[in-house]
């Protein structure tokens, strides 16, 4: 008899454990879940905000210098304006620039490079390039060119017929995307697990990412005279 008693007790013990675990899982308040992903997201957000603030602080410092200079006289004011214009011209893409960065080479999978691929060969599409470029901007790229075409605020990357157009200019594979920024950050944004480089390779395209101490990005070749958009004068501004 005692063995049976112990067996019954054991079953009851396990039952007790199960009931508690069940109650715990069902009634778990949200605060108890370890928010690892949320912590990660907040950390990233904090870093981005701090970077944004650092940039603003840098600009404020520069503006204060320009203002101090402009107060000294007309010649200094003119010089201050010119450096301000130059800063925006660089940012608008109207000036060729150099700096550290990455070079990304993307090539279609060559026909017949794998057995049975003669019929289906993946060709890099406009949206693939858009994604690469989007990741690079997100990683803090300051200037980007695709096959020598500087990307400006009005630049498109779009399939037109069988070719991709950038700034209304036809580009052909292999595609070379050059970006200026922190080379490590730019490269890892593309190489991240599940990222755009992995996706391209999964489709059979090649994606070669090289970090560079210096890359050169040409100026935008087109004209940027706006026909429709007019600046609103400051008086009108809220």
């Amino acid at each position: 008899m005692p063995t049976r008693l112990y067996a019954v007790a054991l079953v009851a013990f396990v039952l007790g454990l199960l009931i508690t675990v069940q109650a715990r899982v069902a009634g778990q308040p949200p605060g108890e879940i370890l928010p690892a992903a949320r912590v990660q997201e907040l950390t990233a957000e904090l870093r981005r905000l701090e970077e944004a603030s650092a940039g603003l602080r840098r600009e404020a410092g520069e503006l204060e210098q320009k203002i101090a200079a402009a107060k000294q006289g007309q010649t200094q004011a003119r010089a201050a304006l010119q450096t301000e214009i130059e800063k925006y011209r660089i940012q608008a893409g109207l000036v060729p620039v150099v700096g550290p960065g990455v070079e990304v080479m993307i090539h279609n999978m060559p026909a017949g490079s794998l057995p049975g691929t003669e019929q289906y060969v993946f060709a890099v599409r406009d949206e693939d390039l858009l994604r690469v470029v989007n990741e690079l901007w997100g990683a803090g790229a300051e200037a980007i060119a695709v096959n020598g075409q500087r990307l400006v605020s009005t630049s498109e990357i779009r399939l037109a017929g069988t070719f991709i157009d950038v700034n209304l200019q036809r580009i052909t594979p292999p595609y070379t995307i050059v970006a200026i920024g922190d080379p490590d950050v730019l490269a890892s944004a593309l190489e991240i697990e599940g990222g755009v480089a992995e996706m391209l390779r999964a489709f059979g395209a090649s994606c070669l990412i090289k970090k560079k101490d210096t890359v050169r990005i040409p100026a935008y070749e087109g004209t940027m005279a706006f026909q429709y958009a007019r600046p609103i004068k400051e008086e009108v501004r809220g």
Partner: protein
Amino acid sequence: MWQRLKSRRFYWGFIAIGLVLGLMVATQFRVARQQAQAVPIQRFNELMTDVQRARQEQESLQARVDRLRGELNRLTESPDLAALRSELDAVRTQVGVADVAGPGIEVVLNDSSATLQPGQNPNFYVLHDEDILKVLNELRAAGAEALAINGERITAGTEIRCIGPAVLVNKTQRLTPPYVITAIGNPETMEASLKMRGGVVDTLRYWGIEVGIKRHPLVVIKAYKGATGFKYARPAPAEGGE
């Protein structure tokens, strides 16, 4: 008879003791684990406070930069500098650091409202960063001169990235659907380009994404909020030496 009764009571007693013991052990275990989790939650709250503080700092720095830009404008208002000033205005407009107005369109994008059949992947029926990228790209191809999404100016360097159900734009701005894209340019050309057969709107509607397009005689697009000036890129030496 008595024997049987006694052993039955015995059974019940053991069952009760076992149950209580089991409950106690499991509860004990649970309390111990809760204590281990309490620390990250506190850290999480601290981080939240840090993020709020950082956002406030960013906003006050932005206000300071705006004020300083205005001051430089006022200091350079003399007629002698008028030519340079209009050049500055033009290049600021191109970068996106000036409020602009003009004719254009408004595109409203929203997740599919269709009820899904069991087994359908809900992820296919919500808007992705890529969908927004494609719409913006199409608008640029159709000659858009200024773009904004939910009031956030789209500059050359603006990224569109999904984070959970939201979209992150200009590094620090989180937007949620519906997404309202405003574009300044030729309204007819832009609308036609989006609505092209087999084009962007067709593709989005296939997935049940709601797309609304309206033409407007006057659209106002606010300036980009954020710092200007580069940290890594500098003007290339004249003869392009690498």
